[in-house]
């Protein structure tokens, strides 16, 4: 396999990891964000928490793996995005700190105030990352103000407030609502009674909202956000010459790939359809279908973003020629091929034992089960 093919495969694999993160960790973050909305009393909240209790930790590893894969496969992208979005990343990190502690500690002490505080922290720890991930993608689409010096050291001129611009906030809200919606779809599958009924209502409303925001984001991207395009020839089989290409900033350029390959319009279309179906199935109480539609919609939103930006992964608004693409910001051929083999071996294994884990813990939870096992459950 040549360098070019490996680079393309790694673009796909990073996408797979991000999709894996959003459809798994997405629902546990969603459930946690809904904790105080859907759970009206301690028993109900305990049911909600225990639907995700055996899985959140494994789910979160999709995020850790995406970070690790970024480090290994696109080291310069990892460096530029994590340091460029410094405060946003650190706030995400602080929020993520709270989740393991809240889940593990909340039911360790039988005290209303103790539990209530951890519940708020759990909600905060799940909602903030969900929002910031969207904000980050919103900023990637607009370009990020960085450039390199001749030792390829990064210089970043943006700040946290600059990240919180209207388009990015729209993307952030979409991302948050997608996660919350996904959490509601999951709760339909795993709970009974009131919790299930409330989740159905929430999902049927939220998924339509997501569809609207997604379309709105697309229109905004077309009319109000300039895209990037490479006008020189990148040697896709050669060493990275990250700063040597020529890049133009053009209105509508983020739609070039759809113009070249109209079949790709199916992807955003499936995103919208996924949301609409999720709403419909939630109303019809077809729970499995609702969850699958929600997962499909989330995946398609990510793929839509990836295709729009292809081959860019982190465009530079300060120095467009220094933009990072999936052709010229990758690891060496050796590392990409080793990591490809590792991924081929382990990703199927991971999917297999994760599936087994869900199978072992299958079934719905109710308040009675929580009360019967009060000392062994979260």
């Amino acid at each position: 396999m040549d360098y070019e093919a490996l680079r393309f495969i790694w673009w796909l694999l990073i996408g797979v990891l991000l999709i894996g993160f959003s459809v798994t960790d997405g629902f546990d973050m969603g459930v946690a964000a809904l904790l105080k909305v859907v759970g009206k009393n301690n028993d109900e909240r305990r049911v909600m928490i225990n639907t995700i209790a055996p899985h959140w930790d494994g789910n979160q590893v999709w995020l850790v793996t995406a970070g690790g894969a970024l480090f290994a496969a696109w080291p310069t992208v990892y460096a530029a995005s994590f340091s460029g979005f410094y405060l946003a990343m650190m706030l995400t990190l602080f929020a993520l700190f709270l989740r393991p502690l809240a889940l593990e500690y909340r039911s360790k002490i039988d005290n209303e105030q103790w539990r209530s505080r951890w519940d708020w922290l759990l909600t905060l720890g799940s909602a903030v990352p969900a929002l910031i991930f969207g904000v980050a993608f919103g900023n990637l689409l607009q370009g990020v103000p960085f450039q390199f010096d001749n030792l390829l050291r990064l210089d970043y001129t943006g700040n946290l407030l600059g990240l919180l611009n209207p388009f990015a906030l729209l993307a952030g809200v979409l991302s948050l609502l997608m996660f919350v919606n996904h959490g509601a779809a999951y709760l339909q599958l795993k709970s009974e009674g009131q919790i299930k009924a409330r989740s159905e209502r929430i999902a049927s409303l939220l998924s339509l909202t997501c569809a609207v925001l997604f379309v709105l984001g697309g229109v905004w991207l077309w009319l109000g956000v300039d895209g990037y395009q490479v006008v020189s020839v990148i040697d896709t089989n050669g060493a990275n010459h990250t700063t040597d290409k020529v890049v133009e900033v053009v209105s509508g350029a983020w739609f070039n790939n759809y113009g070249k390959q109209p079949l790709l319009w199916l992807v955003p279309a499936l995103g919208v359809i996924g949301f609409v179906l999720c709403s419909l199935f939630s109303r019809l109480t077809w729970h499995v279908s609702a969850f699958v539609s929600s997962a499909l919609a989330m995946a398609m939103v990510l793929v839509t973003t990836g295709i729009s930006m292809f081959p860019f992964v982190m465009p530079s608004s300060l120095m467009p020629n220094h933009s990072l693409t999936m052709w010229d910001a990758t690891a060496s051929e050796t590392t990409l091929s080793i990591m490809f083999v590792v991924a081929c071996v382990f990703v199927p294994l991971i999917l297999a034992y994760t599936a087994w884990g869900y199978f072992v813990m299958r079934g719905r939870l109710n308040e009675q089960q929580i009360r019967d096992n009060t000392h062994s459950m979260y």
Partner: protein
Amino acid sequence: MDIVDLSRMQFALTAMIHFLFVPLTLGMAFLLAIMESVYVMTGKQIYRDMTQFWGKLFGINFALGVTTGLAMEFQFGTNWAYYSHYVGDIFGAPLAIEALMAFFLESTLFGLFFFGWERMSKVKHLAVTWLMAIATNLSALWILIANGWMQYPIGSEFNIETMRMEMTSFAEVLLNPVAQVKFVHTVSAGYVTGAIFMLAISSWYLLKGRDLPFARRSFAIASAFGLAGVLSVIVLGDESGYEAGEVQQVKLAAIEAEWETQEAPAAFTLFGLPNEETQHTDYAVKIPAVLGLIATRSLDEQVPGLREIKENNLKRIVRGQQAYDLMQRIRAGDKSATTLEAFNAVRDDLGFGLLLSGYTDDVLNASPEEIAAAVEATVPKVWPLFWSFRVMVGCGMLMLLLFACAFWHSARRTPDKPKWLLKFAIFSLPLPWIACETGWFVAEYGRQPWAIGEILPTHLAVSSLSVSEVWFTLISIAVLYTIFVIIEVWLMTKYARKGPSSLHTGRYDLETTHVQEA
């Protein structure tokens, strides 16, 4: 303080706090697997209760291990961006493999360990516990392969086109002798930590005369496991001394305060007061020949002293100046064969040129004072290394004594352990943590001034951030971690005091008087 100091402080803080939780996870995971194996083999309920009770404490600890572990992964990118770019091609791979091979498995099984008791057969659950234990250790293996490469970067070379280090041999990175020795030394330290934790708490129950059958069994398992662990730590610690003698001579010389090269075989300085000013160790108590034996496994090879190392580094800095200059010319577009050839001849010393760039604006024409300052910097401060190393070894020896006594008494099956032994065990509780932290301090402070040994100096590895941003995150992390650690220790103490009664099985002491808590 500048951005480099602040970033280093933040990294040191997050790494050292993270490592309060990691060794306990490493050790407890295997102890849980052992206890559950006894349960499955004998069918005795008490071993299941032991697995569940110690499992609760394991869970409280694991949550903070995960939390503080996230910070480690984020920080290479957030605070060490040039590092990530410069060595990500090699360093990123073991981290990504760790996630794919180990962390996924460990985290998925963590949930099943706690919530799967009633949903799986005994044997399946036991398999889950064993795999979780193996996965935590595999996780340590990959992290230490990455860390070993920072100490001794083999299997890679500099690529001027991409301006970074690139992997040339994955096998060399994997089989790095420093990493292999470190792995066994570190996981064994984890086993000792887990064992002391269980031993100390069981001793406390024994001393109080409560939950005796439960505590005796826990004591016996911990003492056997701990003795094996502590022996392995010490043997492998000696092995690291040998590896350091081979490949990390600066660190070894600093640990030993070996200012001058001694006649072979070198004497080992047991104690003394290293004096930076006079480059001499005052009041040194020496044991002849021992250092030479540890470091070279021979009687006639010399162990180079700090002065000799600095003299050698001066030569490398001079070559590094040329490498740096040639690199700049090539980056500016001069791709002629002669320039490339000249660069390749001095390429291995580029790191020393980069190091010098922290002391001057004009590397090629650096003044003698600037060069001298860079030479001085190639050797870390002696006394912190000298002392932390001795604290680590002292703790190790005390723990060896403890486990030897504990094992002796549990092997003799004396029903009542002597009080002094129980107290010794209780007061030994902090020892493994002190040893782990000082050990890591020796490893990482001893690597300075390099982020990647002799390749990338620490001052160049940082991100371009503002001082106020890093102050903000440093203080936030310090505050958050302090709160987390207080909560964790409080919860841990609370559950340790409750003991197995916290399982609410009705079989243990304190249960009738116990206030109902979740």
